[in-house]
């Protein structure tokens, strides 16, 4: 029975792993600061944040 339960955990972890792999890299591409974070000292301006978000929106439009 216990091995069965590990199968449940493995499937759940597999899906979560896939979702994390799907969701986290876009943030790495634009940089943490660009999505509102403060990973670096010189990347806190609103203009840069908006520009990065805008760039992503434009890319999104192209792929729609």
């Amino acid at each position, binding site marked *: 029975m216990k091995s069965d339960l590990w199968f449940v955990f493995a499937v759940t972890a597999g899906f979560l792993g896939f979702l994390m792999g799907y969701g986290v890299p876009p943030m790495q591409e634009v940089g943490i600061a660009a999505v509102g*974070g403060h990973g670096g000292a010189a990347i806190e301006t609103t203009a840069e944040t908006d520009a990065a978000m805008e760039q992503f929106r434009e890319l999104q439009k192209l792929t729609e």
Partner: protein
Amino acid sequence: MQQQVASVATADEAVAKMTLEEEGRRKKRLWAQGLLGFFAFISVGTYVYNEYYIYLSVYLWFGMIYGMCLQYGKFCFSSAFRDLFAIRVPRMLVGIVIATVLFGVVSAPITAIGLSTFHAAPVSSHAVIAGVFFGIGMVIAGGCASSSLYKTGEGNLNALIVILSLSLTQALFADVGGWANYFVPEAWTQSALEKGLPASINVTDGWVDQYLAGYVWNSPALTYAQVLGMKTDSVSGAFVGNLLVGILIPAGLLLALVYALYWRKGYRNKQKKAGNVVSGLGGELAGYWSMIIANKRTAIAGLILGIACALHMLVMQGLRVKFGFKNAGVLLERIGWDYGLSVQGTVFDPGYWYVTTQEAQWVGWTLQKMGINNMDNIYFGFVNGIPNPAINPADWMSFSLIGGAAIIALYHDEFKFKKPTWETAMWSIIGGFFMGIGARLGLGCNVGAFFVRVANGDCSGWLFGLGMAGGAYLGVQFFNWWTEKKLAKEMESCGL
């Protein structure tokens, strides 16, 4: 000879019983695997149909984790306070406080780098009053908002009634106007009018609308970091302001109070019986530690919950960047489900664990479909919308939470349909009603208004908790009075 025959027959019966039990367990495991397969099918199928559905799948799989943890840890705020006040056992409460601290520890780095999706709520005495309503309700109902979900997953139909009552109350309370407007102070009405809300909201008609726009929104939304003059999304703000001052110190003091009032005496008696002498600070600290580790199961569940909650926020933020939106309303519009979006084009999309609003939306959507306008209030019409429950992102989390709890319950042979009696159903309805009122007044339940807020350094979290404890105390006193009255009546009827 006869004895031998009898013992063989008994052994055969025992073997048959064991085989039946094993067959029952095998069937339950199959059901659990079927549920897992169903959720996997939904995720894969919708992703193949349209990539955007992956956003909803994030809610689904994290909801599953929440359900598994809640069921494993028997994470119930109602039990925590009831056990404490009724039988002086603090185990569950300590487990919940430890879980909240662990969630805070995991959230702090996410907040420090600015990736938290959490937003602080307005701080004022309304949080305490809301907590009192909620606390009374959860003790009467026999379960809080989150435990009612996992208990539903265990087959407890009383818990399902609590959820239905809580959902219906919220939806009706959020829209109540007419006669209720007479109970709105003039200052709230004037202040609500000054907010310039869209005409479709009709802000002067609705008690909750004027309460929100005329009173709650005027209160500051503060974190402990902000109170101390720090930026919330900075290392000092997240770790010193929110985690140390907002969580670790108050939680430590609360646990010290619980130790002094509910644990110390029993611990000292136990040690005395074992021949050990408890003296000095070292002895007290050993007793304090024994209380902390008394409920490992809830603490382990809390740790996993904390990690899951933090990862949930991270993944949601990542997908919002990937798809280029800040609210799932945009996503629903893109995939062609634009019914029930708020006047701002938004839907309820917290980005983290939440319980009550999506439940209210089920009822809001149903009432709207029945021709009762539910979009002329702030709660649904201006902020959260009432999308179809089948594609409501947060609903995917609640459904899978029930599913996750069911899977663990089935595996541990703890799944059993429990039918309500008329009396338990009545308590479930009344408790759900009080919790519904409390959840709307406090803008959340024991999860959204306490667990998540405290762990993220929101000043209103402990205020709601304070009210919840007071309400639970009143609820326990009421139940004691009721039980005594009932017993006296029964004894009288028996002529005793």
